């Protein structure tokens, strides 16, 4: 059982506070969707959970151990992050990019072990990248690159997987496939999966828990059927959207003032 928790975490950049008093406990087997308007503090939450941004106050703990007490290698073996930036000016092949996920586990001479190769092969298979292995990453479409970076994170074989808008560059089929994979990783392998999502319907359909962030605060947290409703959509997103209640609830636009 893995548990990643924040205790009254406040964090920000320079003078700006981007996240205030966040209390969350994320557990094995959960696919947690973090939703909220632009600039709400969602990415800050991911960066704090990854140990990339130190909280000004409060603490983040992994199985009860404060992240500040762990070095980057120790964190990377437990927590993987799928990056948002995925351009590189160098011709890394897809297989080499996925192999970067093993950086924290390589021996002193940087040679890949059988376990490293197996982890890379499995991650590539799971993201349907086998036919693209030797292609340079910069020759791929945006969606293919995103899958390669997700495979890189999976190759880390971590207990926690953090994703900032993992479906941003994907077509609907790959959005669904990716989120379904995340759901299975949580359910079958007991990973803690936390993903920032914009599509409330995808979040409702596939996440087991929705965390709503607005104005730097966690304003709502629970199963989608309880959390996603018209009042939330109006108060948090300031949008006139209709929500059909159910499990999962369904969000659709109101057009022409109806």
């Amino acid at each position, binding site marked *: 059982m893995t548990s990643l928790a924040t205790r009254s975490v406040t964090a920000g950049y320079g003078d700006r506070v981007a996240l205030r008093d966040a209390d969350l406990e994320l557990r094995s087997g959960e696919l947690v969707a973090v939703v909220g308007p632009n600039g709400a503090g969602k990415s800050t939450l991911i960066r704090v959970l990854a140990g990339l941004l130190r909280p000004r106050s409060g603490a983040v703990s992994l199985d009860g151990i404060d992240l500040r007490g762990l070095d980057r*290698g120790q*964190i990377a073996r437990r927590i993987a992050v799928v990056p948002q*930036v995925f351009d590189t000016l160098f*011709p890394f092949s897809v297989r080499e990019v996925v192999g970067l996920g093993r950086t924290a586990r390589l021996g002193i001479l940087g040679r890949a072990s059988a376990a490293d190769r197996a982890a890379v092969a499995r991650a590539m298979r799971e993201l349907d990248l086998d036919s693209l292995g030797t292609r340079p990453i910069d020759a791929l479409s945006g969606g293919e690159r995103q899958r390669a*970076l997700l495979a890189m994170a999976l190759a880390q074989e971590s207990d926690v997987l953090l994703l900032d808008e993992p479906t941003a560059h994907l077509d609907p089929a790959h959005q669904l496939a990716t989120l379904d994979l995340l759901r299975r990783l949580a359910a079958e392998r007991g990973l803690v999966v936390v993903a920032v999502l914009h599509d409330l319907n995808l979040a409702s359909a596939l996440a087991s828990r929705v965390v709503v962030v607005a104005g730097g605060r966690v304003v709502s947290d629970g199963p989608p059927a309880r959390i996603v409703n018209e009042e939330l959509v109006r108060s948090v997103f300031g949008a006139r959207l209709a929500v059909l209640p159910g499990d999962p609830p369904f969000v659709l636009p109101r057009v022409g003032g109806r």
Partner: protein
Amino acid sequence: MRTAVVFGVLLCCVAVSVIVGALVGAVPLGPGEVLGAIGGHGDPGTLAIVRDLRLPRVVGAALIGGALAVAGTLLQGLLRNPLADPYVTGTSAGASLGAVATIAIGATAPFVLPFGAFAGAILAVAVTWRLAALGGRTTVLTVLLGGVVLSSFAGALLTFLIVASDRVVPRLRAVIGWLLGGVSVLDSSELLVAGLVIGAGAVVAIALAPRLDAFAFGEETAATLGVDVDRTATVVLVTTAVLTAAAVALGGVIGFVGLVVPHALRPLVGALHRRLVPAAFLAGAATLVLADAGARSVLAPSELPVGVITGAVGGPFFLALLLREQRRMRV
């Protein structure tokens, strides 16, 4: 398999360049005589020419070329910028300023000049790194602009020292010749020390390879992959400064080797640094040995600074690479 072929070809290039380098000179010698002399056979005159005059120079050129190419590879990897190298980032300019400063203050103890070069180089890479990190993320533009500023600034101070220092003026010709990039005949103790320093730098660079790879998607991703970004950056920058300082102390400011060599190799050996770094060392060595042979033969019996050859060949070559890159990006 392909990697093995590329490394085989590179090793052959180094061997051929050494033989060509040893063939060029005032006294005409045949390949057979040169090979024999390298192996220790032949008449004493030929042996002296090849082993005491030409080979030290060839080995010096190989070390300089290898050091610059590895330094360029390190800077490009760390800054995720294929246009970075010791020359364009101003590291070489910093090293030459440090070296000339030791002459200007009259320090003559052995190895003071390389230490001056190292001090200048480390200062320059530190400034480059700070500039690159401005605004939170490394951009191609700030690094290059920073390099322009740094080079101009170091150049201004250098010119001031050359004109104003009583100690530099008498050695003006030698200092200018060295600044323009010239491999001089080295004595064996100098060569041995340089070889040890550059060899150590290259070994550290190879050990850094997996961590440099992790920088491909930026510092933050490198951190999430398990790399201690600050510590790795420090080691990379110090190694770059050591390699650049050693190269500058041996041969002055030589442009384009550090820039072009890694760039030309990536399509052949890929982007992974554990292959790129050793390949860059071999290719850089062969390149500079040949460039030095060219510098000695174009206007024979007088010599051109080798920087003239690397600039004249490397500039258009780099432009061609840029154009090819442009076309590839458009497709």
